[in-house]
C-alpha cells in the first residue's frame, strides 16, 4: 500500500472513531471501548513479535498486572485518582516486565515461548490462589478513576463516552509513541535484531539490552491496556493473565499483520466482532469462527500486499 493511501485510510478510521459516540448507542460505545483496549494490548505485543522477533506467549501477565495494581491499591478507596492509579499500574507492569524479561531474553525461539508462558502461569496461579486478592473471584472496583486538579473535576471516567475518548487517546498516543521509537536509532536496532540477531551482535551492539528495553516498553503498554480494561469493566480476576488471553493477543497480531502497528487494531476488530456476532447466527458459532481463522491464515498472505511481499521475501532468502 502506498504511504499516502495508508495515511489517508488511517485518518479516515480515526475520524470515524472520534465521531462514533455522537451516533452510536452507549452499548456500541462500550463494545468499541473493549475493542480498542484489546487493540492496544495486541499492538504492544506486536513490538515484540513483529519488530523485535521475540514471540512472547506470556504477554497477558503484564496486562493482568496493570489491572491488579489498580484493583489492589484502590479497591477500598472512595476516589480513584487517575494521576496516582495510572502511573502505579504502568510502574508495576514495567517492573514485572523488567524482571521477567531480564531472565527470558537469555533464551530464544521455542524456549523463549515456553519461559514467558511459564512466568505468566506463575502470576496467574499466584492471584488464583491468593484469598487476599480475591482468589479466582477477583476484585471488584466500584468507582471509575477521576482526574482532579485541586477540587476541580477535569475528567470523570464515569460516563461511557469519556471513558471511550480516554481509551482512544491512549491508543493513539501509544501508536504515535511506537512510531517514533521505531524511526529512532533504537527502532533500527530492534528491527535488525529480528532480521539477524547474530550479525547485530557482531556489529557491536549489546543485543540483550535492546531486547530487554523492547520487552519492558511492550510490557508497560500491556499494563496500560490492563489498567484500562480493569477500570472499564470494574472487575479484575486471574483470567486476565490466562494463557488464553496471551494466545488471543498472538492471534490478533498474526491475523492483523505482524510488523505493522495498525495491523493489531484491525485484528482486534475482527476477533471481537466475530466473537460477538457469530453466536447470533448459530449455536455452532465456534465452528464457524475456527473456519474463518483458518481461511484467513491460509489466504490472507495472498490478498494483503504487505504480507505478500514478506511472503516472497522469505522464499527468496531460502
Amino acid at each position, binding site marked *: 500500500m502506498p504511504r499516502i493511501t495508508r495515511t489517508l485510510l488511517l485518518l479516515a478510521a480515526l475520524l470515524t472513531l472520534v465521531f462514533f459516540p455522537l451516533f452510536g448507542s452507549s452499548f456500541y460505545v462500550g463494545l468499541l471501548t473493549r475493542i480498542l483496549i484489546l487493540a492496544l494490548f495486541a499492538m504492544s505485543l506486536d513490538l515484540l513479535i513483529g519488530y523485535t522477533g521475540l514471540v512472547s506467549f506470556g504477554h497477558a501477565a503484564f496486562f493482568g498486572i496493570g489491572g491488579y495494581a489498580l484493583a489492589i491499591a484502590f479497591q477500598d478507596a472512595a476516589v480513584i485518582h487517575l494521576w496516582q492509579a495510572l502511573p502505579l499500574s504502568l510502574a508495576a507492569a514495567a517492573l514485572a516486565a523488567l524482571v521477567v524479561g531480564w531472565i527470558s531474553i537469555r533464551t530464544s525461539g521455542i524456549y523463549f515461548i515456553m519461559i514467558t508462558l511459564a512466568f505468566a502461569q506463575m502470576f496467574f496461579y499466584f492471584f488464583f490462589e491468593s484469598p487476599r486478592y480475591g482468589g479466582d473471584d477477583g476484585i471488584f472496583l466500584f468507582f471509575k478513576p477521576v482526574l482532579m486538579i485541586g477540587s476541580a473535576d477535569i475528567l470523570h471516567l464515569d460516563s461511557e463516552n469519556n471513558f471511550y475518548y480516554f481509551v482512544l487517546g491512549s491508543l493513539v498516543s501509544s501508536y504515535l509513541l511506537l512510531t*517514533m*521509537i521505531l*524511526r*529512532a*536509532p*533504537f*527502532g*533500527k*536496532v530492534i528491527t*535488525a535484531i529480528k*532480521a*539477524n540477531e*547474530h*550479525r*547485530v*551482535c*557482531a*556489529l*557491536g*551492539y*549489546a*543485543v540483550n*539490552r*535492546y531486547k530487554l*528495553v523492547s520487552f519492558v516498553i511492550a510490557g508497560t503498554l500491556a499494563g496500560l491496556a490492563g489498567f484500562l480494561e480493569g477500570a472499564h469493566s470494574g472487575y479484575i480476576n486471574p483470567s486476565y493473565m490466562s494463557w488464553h488471553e496471551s494466545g488471543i493477543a498472538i492471534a490478533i497480531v498474526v491475523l492483523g499483520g505482524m510488523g505493522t502497528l495498525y495491523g493489531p487494531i484491525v485484528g482486534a476488530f475482527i476477533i471481537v466482532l466475530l466473537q460477538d456476532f457469530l453466536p447470533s447466527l448459530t449455536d455452532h458459532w465456534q465452528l464457524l469462527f475456527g473456519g474463518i481463522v483458518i481461511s484467513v491464515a491460509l489466504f490472507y498472505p495472498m490478498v494483503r500486499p504487505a504480507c505478500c511481499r*514478506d511472503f516472497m*521475501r522469505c522464499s*527468496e*532468502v531460502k
Partner: protein
Amino acid sequence: MTDTILRTDRLSKNFGGLIAANNVSLNFERGQVHAIIGPNGAGKTTLINLLSGDLLPSDGTILFNGKNITSLPPDKISQLGIGRSYQKTNIFATFSCYENCWVAAQSRLNTSMRFFRPAKKLKKVQDRAEMTLDLCGLSSRRDVLASAMSYGEQRQLEIGMMLATEPELLLLDEPLAGMGSEESLQVIELLRRLSRDHTLILIEHDMDAVFSIAEQLTVMVNGRVLETGTVEQIRNSQAVQEVYLGVEEEAT
C-alpha cells in the same frame, strides 16, 4: 622494533573430543596483511571465531593492543576496533543494501538507546553508510533488497558492513568465496587499498590472491600452526610444501 596489534598465546578450542584449535600462538603485526591458509578443517575459521568472540576459547589468551580480550563477547570486541566478515553471508536479508550499511554504521554511536529523534537525521551515520556503499562498490544498488542482490554483491555488502564499523583490525573469512573472477579482482583491489591503513587477517583459498596481497603467512593443519613467516619463508618451507602447497588441488 615490531609493533604487535594482536597476539594469541596457546589458544585452544575443543568441541567435545575434537580439538579444532590446538595451542595456537601467533603474533600479528600492525599494518600488515597476514593470511592464514590450510586445508579444509584445519581450524582457520575456528581461529577467526575465537578472535572475534563468536567462540569462547577452551584455553589460552588473546591480547589486542596489549589488552586481554580473551573472553569478551563479540559486541565488546567489535567496539574495541576489530571488525569481521563472515564466510557464509551474514547480512540483513529483509533490509535494503543501504539499510544494511546504515545499521552497521549506527553501531559507532555512543549508544543507540535513543528513542526520540528519527535515525535518518543523524548526519554522521548517514555519511558513513554512504561512504561504505561507495567503498564496497554498491552505490548503484543502494535501494535494492539485500536478498534480491547477486551472491557476489552480497559478499561485497558483507565486507562493506564490516567497514562501516570503522575497525582498525579486519578479520576476513574467505572474502572471495563464490565470487566470479571480475568481482574477485574488485575485492582484491579493495583489500589492497584497505591494507594501506588497516591490519588485515585473511583466510583465503585463492592462492593467487593470497600471494598477491599477503605479507605474512601462517599455515594451519589439524588445528595446529604448521609454519608462520613471510611469504618467502613459507614458499621455501619443506614442511609446508609437503603438507599443503604440494597437494593443494586435493585439499581444496
